[in-house]
């Protein structure tokens, strides 16, 4: 066996790959489900917090800013570990899926709130005044005049941040979640062969590379400049 053969036998072993392909695919499905749950709940929660903050109720805003700061400061892995290993002591044992989902959704919520808020405050004051001068109420102005403009400004930074946080689904493997990396690692230790890991790596690229390329396009299309 040449060294090249040894290399392909280790890293791209067809027999091993075939055997564990279903596992990796199952991992992909779970990763997609987790990612969808994180993105939907995280963005929605972030938007709701930003809108609440626009109401301008002092104590509520302090609370929002604190929660946002907290989840921007904590590494997502620390949040996952805290929820998965810590919460059971408080009598609540979330599954690996729920722990990972909650953690990443909280982190995305924090970043999304910050970005939505920046979009709202960067909309010129004159837009508020013009809308209010025609009799639109606060909520109507926010909904029909400010948000559509703010959302456009937020698309590019929000896309990038969402991708970065969604990649964190791989962290679930630390709490034994059977997503792609978890499946690949256990397949690797069962087969004493790194081929499943290469498949796992490829699976991530299949999922995320198109999104990253699409984000590049979005960035040039909806940049912060107007």
């Amino acid at each position, binding site marked *: 066996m040449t060294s090249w053969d040894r290399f392909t036998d280790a890293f791209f072993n067809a027999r091993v790959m075939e055997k564990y392909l279903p596992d990796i695919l199952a991992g992909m499905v779970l990763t997609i489900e987790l990612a969808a749950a994180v993105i939907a709940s995280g963005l929605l929660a972030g938007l709701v917090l930003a809108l609440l903050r626009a109401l301008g109720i002092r104590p509520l805003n302090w609370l929002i800013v604190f929660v946002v700061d907290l989840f921007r400061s904590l590494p997502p892995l620390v949040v996952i570990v805290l929820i998965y290993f810590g919460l059971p002591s408080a009598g609540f044992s979330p599954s690996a899926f729920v722990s990972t989902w909650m953690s990443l959704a909280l982190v995305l919520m924090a970043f999304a709130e910050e970005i939505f808020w920046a979009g709202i405050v960067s909309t010129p004051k*004159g837009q508020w*005044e013009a809308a*209010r*001068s*025609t009799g639109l109420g606060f909520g109507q102005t926010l909904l029909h005049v400010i948000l*559509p403009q703010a959302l456009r400004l937020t698309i590019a930074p929000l896309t990038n941040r969402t991708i970065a946080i969604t990649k964190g689904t791989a962290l679930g493997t630390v709490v034994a979640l059977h997503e792609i990396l978890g499946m690949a690692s256990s397949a690797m230790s069962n087969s004493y062969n790194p081929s499943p890991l290469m498949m796992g790596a490829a699976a991530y690229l299949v999922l995320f590379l198109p999104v990253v390329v699409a984000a590049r396009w979005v960035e040039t299309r909806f940049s912060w400049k107007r």
Partner: protein
Amino acid sequence: MRLMPPIVSAKAIHKHFGPLHVLKGVDLDVAERELVFVIGPSGSGKSTLLRCLNRLEAPSSGSIVVDGIDMLSSKTDINHARQRIGMVFQSFNLYPHMTALGNVTLALRKVVGKSRAEAEVLGRAALERVGLADRAGHRPAELSGGQQQRVAIARAIALEPRVMLFDEPTSALDPELVGSVLAVMRGLRESGMTMIVVSHEMGFARAAADRVVFMDDGLIVEQGPPAQIFESPTHGRTRAFIGQIQRH
């Protein structure tokens, strides 16, 4: 004309911004169909006064009654009241994400409660009045400054206001575009609209204003018919200001 009850009545308006005392007790009555022109150096409080009239700024004290509605009462539905007071801004403040027609119809639909179809009929009529019926589907970015300001006027008059406030409507425009906006304002004037205009367009003031009000340092210094204020102002500060403006 002076015998008619005023449609706008502001009494003893004070406005503080932190330590700044911007309005120091301003009284202003405006009769129906009257065009009042407010002039004065920058920082004299004329824009703030205008913005107090529809409560975009809340006065620190005083009273404002517009068309029989107490603007400062907490019982007043301010959004409903503002519908009767149109406002045009120096920087147009058109909604960039909507077409001209969308800008004009938003409040008709959301405040007045018209259906989209009804609102669009009224909106097109308003655009027609400012000579922009053919621009209904354009976004603000596709319009010239003069056209944008005329859309902004259409947005205000579509609500059929009783009073129109103009806050330096032509200051942000290139000189060659000023005329089209002033023409629309003249048309409004001829239709009998009550107007309060903060502006430096002295030619327009001479031709169209019933009364010119000169403000300085948060107070009304002097007021009267345009000929009197421009030709023979009694107050030194007015004279200095008029002289400065006319040298340009």
